[in-house]
């Protein structure tokens, strides 16, 4: 029987190696948007925050912590994706839009 955390460690290892390989191929031109995009993706913490905040019998402490965490994570998600898109819109080849 494989423990859950053991399974998790395999996932972690493979995802990290995949991350390295993918990021290596990213053009230095796009390093800033890459950083804001990957930051927006790691705001997946939003999932944990929803679970805490929405729980039926949460104590006052966990509800407050979850609520604040959810606001923070949502800011991270929304700002992260929007700024990435705003930056990428500016990258154009010559005379693309004229």
């Amino acid at each position, binding site marked *: 029987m494989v423990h859950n955390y053991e399974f998790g460690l395999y996932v972690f290892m493979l995802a*990290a190696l995949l991350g390295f390989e*993918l990021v290596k*191929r990213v053009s230095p031109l796009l390093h800033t948007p890459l950083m804001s995009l990957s930051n927006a993706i790691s705001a997946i913490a939003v999932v944990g925050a929803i679970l805490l905040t929405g729980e039926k019998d949460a104590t006052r402490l966990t509800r407050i912590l979850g609520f604040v965490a959810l606001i923070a994570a949502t800011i991270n998600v929304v700002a992260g994706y929007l700024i990435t898109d705003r930056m990428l819109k500016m990258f154009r080849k010559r005379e693309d839009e004229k």
Partner: protein
Amino acid sequence: MDTLLPIIYLIAALGFILAIKWMNHPATARRGVIIGEIGMLLAVIGTLLRSEVVEYQWVLLALAIGSAIGAPLAYLMPMTSVPQLTALSHAFGALASALIGTAEFYKNSPTGFTMGALSMETLLGFLTTTASIIAFGKLQEILPTRPLTYKGQNFVSLTVLAAAIVVAGMMVTGQTAPWMFPTFTVLSLLFGILLVAPIGGADMPTVIALLNSSAGVAAAAMGFVLDNRLLIIAGSLNGAAGLLLSIIMCKAMNRSFTNVLFGAFGQVQTGGGGAAPRPVRSATPEEAASILDSASSVIIIPGYGMAVAQAQHKIREVFDILSKRGVNVRFAIHPVAGRMPGHMNVLLAEADIPYDKLLEMDEINQDFPMTDVALVVGANDVVNPLARSPQDSPIQGMPILDADKARTVMVIKRSMNPGFAGIDNEIYYMDKTLMLFGDAKGFTASIAKELTATH
């Protein structure tokens, strides 16, 4: 619904992986953002539909508040403030991880492996929060950008970190005194401040990339605590991306992590006023314009000074005029130019300069000897030929742009003050170098005006 959830999370994870993959080229990058957004939307909707989520009013209120703050932040910040916004964004994400870890601790009081992961999550979460806030302060210039140092600093910082790890170790082995978790929290927050305060402004590219990485690892650690694979995948993708970027930054300066984090680099301003001023040749905008006009190839080297002066739009005017007259104008971008990885590219793209004219160091360095004019705008250490010399210096061995090999070098600069590394730049004293003293924006505007007047 709960049986469908693993599939929804799996698709979300696939979306995140494709998002990073499609970032490899400007042509597919926006598709990457869309697939990443879909992944996030699926993850959020899937989570909202889980049977244990019932108190919707709180969840929806928090989502609404977060969006109401996040959207204007992304749209109203000027492009020059992207490094600040990124630092702030890291702080929010890391704070979320840390608070969730804290709540999980008080809810389940875990031990063993789960507590180990939880310690990692909260340690990295809290330290990334305060470290990112300090980085934000330095980038926004609310805090001094020079390193803040005192004697025995590294010893104090590392002691604080060690103490946090010891307390975490005690909690992992099952000790549960009520003072432990709050102490651990305070130590983690404190370490974040101590870590970034002594780091200078121009080392921010490495620091931001590292904080990006640690925010990701905090999210991955949360995945272990909550036993959620999607969190592990998304967090480790981000962790790997940030780490790789910071390695690239360190290599581009020929320095180690230890040197960036604990070297308090750039604090000594040597030889600033002591030595007698050496003679340099300077030129007026008219002279600069006529040299550019008669050139057939020009390479522009932007640096942080261009961002500070907001000179990118005026540079675009010069670029347009010269390109129309058949001059081959290109840009040479050093990996650490600016305050975050890729900073110069974003600013030049904002000014509507086509991205195929923005070349990285390895692509363009061999072209300098055949180039008529190298125009340096607000860059310094990245064109200092001293880096090639075996002589011991703070920038020894750092890969540089070979601007000094061009037929003529022009440098737009406010004064003769040294750059971040605190050393003099030989390139200013060469016979073929012309110093263009003035504000980058104002000077470039004058050049553009002269160029238009001559035809």
